[in-house]
């Protein structure tokens, strides 16, 4: 493991939140119980146990499926629309 990389076995909620705030990941692969927590923290979450009912992720075609799902999760336009226009700070 290189410096700056973290591995936690049996990660609990406190550790997940702490990790997000310190490492600022761009994408979180987890299970269904953590997926929506990631979303609320503003980070795309993909389920790795069920592949979000997509997949398969094995093999060459699986790699294509995986790439498509990850690209969609990262680029879905809604991430840029989280703040309501009336909540934008600063001078008009």
């Amino acid at each position, binding site marked *: 493991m290189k410096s700056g990389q973290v591995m936690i076995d049996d990660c609990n909620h406190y550790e997940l939140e702490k990790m997000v705030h310190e490492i600022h990941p761009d994408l979180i692969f987890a299970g269904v119980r953590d997926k*929506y927590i990631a*979303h609320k923290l503003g980070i*795309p979450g993909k389920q790795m146990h*069920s592949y*979000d*009912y*997509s997949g398969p992720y094995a093999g060459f075609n699986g790699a294509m499926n995986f790439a*498509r*799902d990850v690209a*969609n*999760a990262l*680029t*879905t*336009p*809604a*991430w840029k*629309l*989280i703040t*309501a*226009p*009336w*909540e934008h700070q600063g001078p008009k």
Partner: protein
Amino acid sequence: MLECMPKARSEHTTGKINPAKTCQPIGAMYAALGIHGCLPHSHGSQGCCAYHRMHLTRHFRDQVLASSSSFTEGASVFGGAANLKTSIKNIFDIYNPEIIAVHTTCLSETIGDDIPTIIKQSEIPEGKIVIHANTPSYQGSHITGFSNMVKGMVTYLAERDEETLRQKRVNIIPGFINPADMREIKRITSDLGIDMIMFPDTTDVLDSPLTSKYEMYPEGGATIAQIRASGNSRLTLTLGHWSSDAAGALLQEKCGVPCIPLKVPIGLKATDDLIMTLKEKFDAVVPKSLTIERGQVVDTLIDTHFHYQGKKVAIFGDPDLVIPLTEFVLTMGMIPTYIITGTPGRQFEDEVSAMIEAAGIQDYIVKAEGDLFELHQWIKEKPVELLLGTSYGKYIARAEDIPLVRVGFPILDRAVHPLMPITGYRGCLRLIEMISNAFLERRDRDCLDEDFELVL
């Protein structure tokens, strides 16, 4: 289904095959129903009136009352003046509306009946009103007819009779949308604490409750007094260029009420635009409830994106709905591939192209004054994965085995839709649900037994 459809693209420059529009008087009749106590009157033969009433009734599943000048061969040769004068007399004698809104038909337009003069020569009881709009169907579409009748309301009714404009009141001209959508726009405006006059307003007219008591003129509709007073409002918002801008521009010219044209608030961005315009012009405070509703839409978009993102969609219908729908499917991460409206207007192509190209999509076709035959040929050449439009898309949907999500006018084969908004943030949720479910239903139908999932 549609087996004779030629596979190779064949351009047709004259005529339309399976048009994505209908005729002017339908729009004029719908607009007139948005005035309280109004009986729409069709100046032409009975067939026109019967067909328009039928079409509107089938969409709304509510009563649509309208009268006809009942042209026969005589009126077709000598003109319909006598018929209209007798109609006006009889209608006020027997059905006693507050106001009659006359629209013309192809027949009376071809004869050249001078409606304003005939109205002036008619016997109109004290306190009653007759207005009119010319609605020749060889021009434009039902949206043009709607726009002409709304403009007629301003011409005949709106007045500036107070010195200073009402600082806290906005006029909203909502366009050709369902009563539930008008209700939603009214709710958002009133949540912002702003007084409003909406005209036309078909809430409580075409979504009226069943109470065991029949009202020929239901409770809803903009009153004559309200439309008159729109001339004293501080601002007009016109929702949709094709349906509403002409009336807004006339109100500005006639009464000096400034007008801001907006999109019909379908989708996140168009709803944001409506709220921000009202907030800035009226110094309104956006309540937390609207911020929460908006946040729920963003949350739902994130949670469901993988059901529809990257899918190709064809959208067809009325320009003022198709433009914001295109904007919203882009927000959803979908790829609008074929976008048509039956209503003419180059501005449609310019606006839609600008939105799609801003999203980095190059491979698309947009066309105003298009038809469903051509759309079908494009789909045969290069398929899409979803159709978004009116019931008339169901033939292509069946022939090509593509899911159809029904939005717009008319929807003749599904119920409840006039009561459920597609506007505002609530409407975003409904569109996401319908589109998402269309793809998931397809997946459940088509997948192998071993891929059939309980959780999706």
